[in-house]
């Protein structure tokens, strides 16, 4: 029983530190290269600019690249969940900082511009 528990514990530790094989790394790198090429190609296609599909497409492709690197190259997909939550906490805070600052400053700039136009500074 104790041996079985130790074996399970060992398996759990192995799993928390397991890393993908070299072929997985190479496949991920190939996918990242293809995505980067797609990003550049769609930048040159007028339809993406005219239809407004360019920015959403670029954002989605960047998110896929971002998640692939942190998931596979940084092993976050295979690591202890505490590391994942630590990094995600920083990431969520960073996104919140960006959103808050952009909304705050852009609103201020618009109000300032309107005051300038109406002459009520």
């Amino acid at each position, binding site marked *: 029983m104790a041996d079985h528990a130790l074996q399970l514990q060992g398996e759990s530790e192995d799993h928390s530190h397991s*890393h993908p094989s070299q072929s997985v790394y*190479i496949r991920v790198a190939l996918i990242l290269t293809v995505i*980067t090429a797609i990003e550049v190609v769609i930048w040159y296609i007028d339809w993406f600019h005219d239809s407004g599909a360019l*920015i959403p497409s670029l954002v989605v492709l960047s998110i896929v*690249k971002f998640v692939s690197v942190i998931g596979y190259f940084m092993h976050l997909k295979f690591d202890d969940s505490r590391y994942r939550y630590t990094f995600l906490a*920083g990431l969520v805070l960073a996104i919140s*900082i960006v959103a808050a*600052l952009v909304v705050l400053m852009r609103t201020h700039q618009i109000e300032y511009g309107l005051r300038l136009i109406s002459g009520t500074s």
Partner: protein
Amino acid sequence: MWLFLASDCMFFGSLIAMYMIYRGDAERMFLAGQGNGPLPDEILDIPYTSISAFVLLMSSLTMVLALASIQRGNQRGLRVWLGATALLGTVFLGGQFFEFSSFHEEGLGLTTNIFGNSFFTLTGFHGAHVTIGVFWLISLIIVSLRGGVRQDQALNVEIAGLYWHFVDIVWIIIFTLVYLIPYDKVESVQHQAEQGFRLIGLG
């Protein structure tokens, strides 16, 4: 390391927020006769930067291959892949130096306009991170040559790798935000301003 990376996320988050706040302002100021060129759509070179982005992505691959080598106890493989990573990082930095120099020759400096200010601050801090990473990798190679990185010390390589991949994911965001998402041309900014004036009854 994860705590440091989480804090660095917030550092780059602030720089990216700064860039987004002032994005497009150079065109508006130019239109109002208050700013100088060159403007982003006149100066950014997408094919050139795409190659830089590819180089940095490939350096992430060589970094994980270095880690895989030391985890198998392959010292030579570790040094080869770490050397390749440092070399690719140096190529990226060389590209950035060339880009900064050509922008300077075309008249864009840190204080030329709001675009120059926010662009050089954001990409400059990223370049500083890459430089630190290259020195870290070279120091690991030197330690390895002296027999200081054993198989049971693979964690040291993994920590350096985490930093390196972080620098890579920051570039993924910068590449999209700064280079690929198109900037309004001066004519379209003028059109938007006229529409805005009409909307509030001043046009």
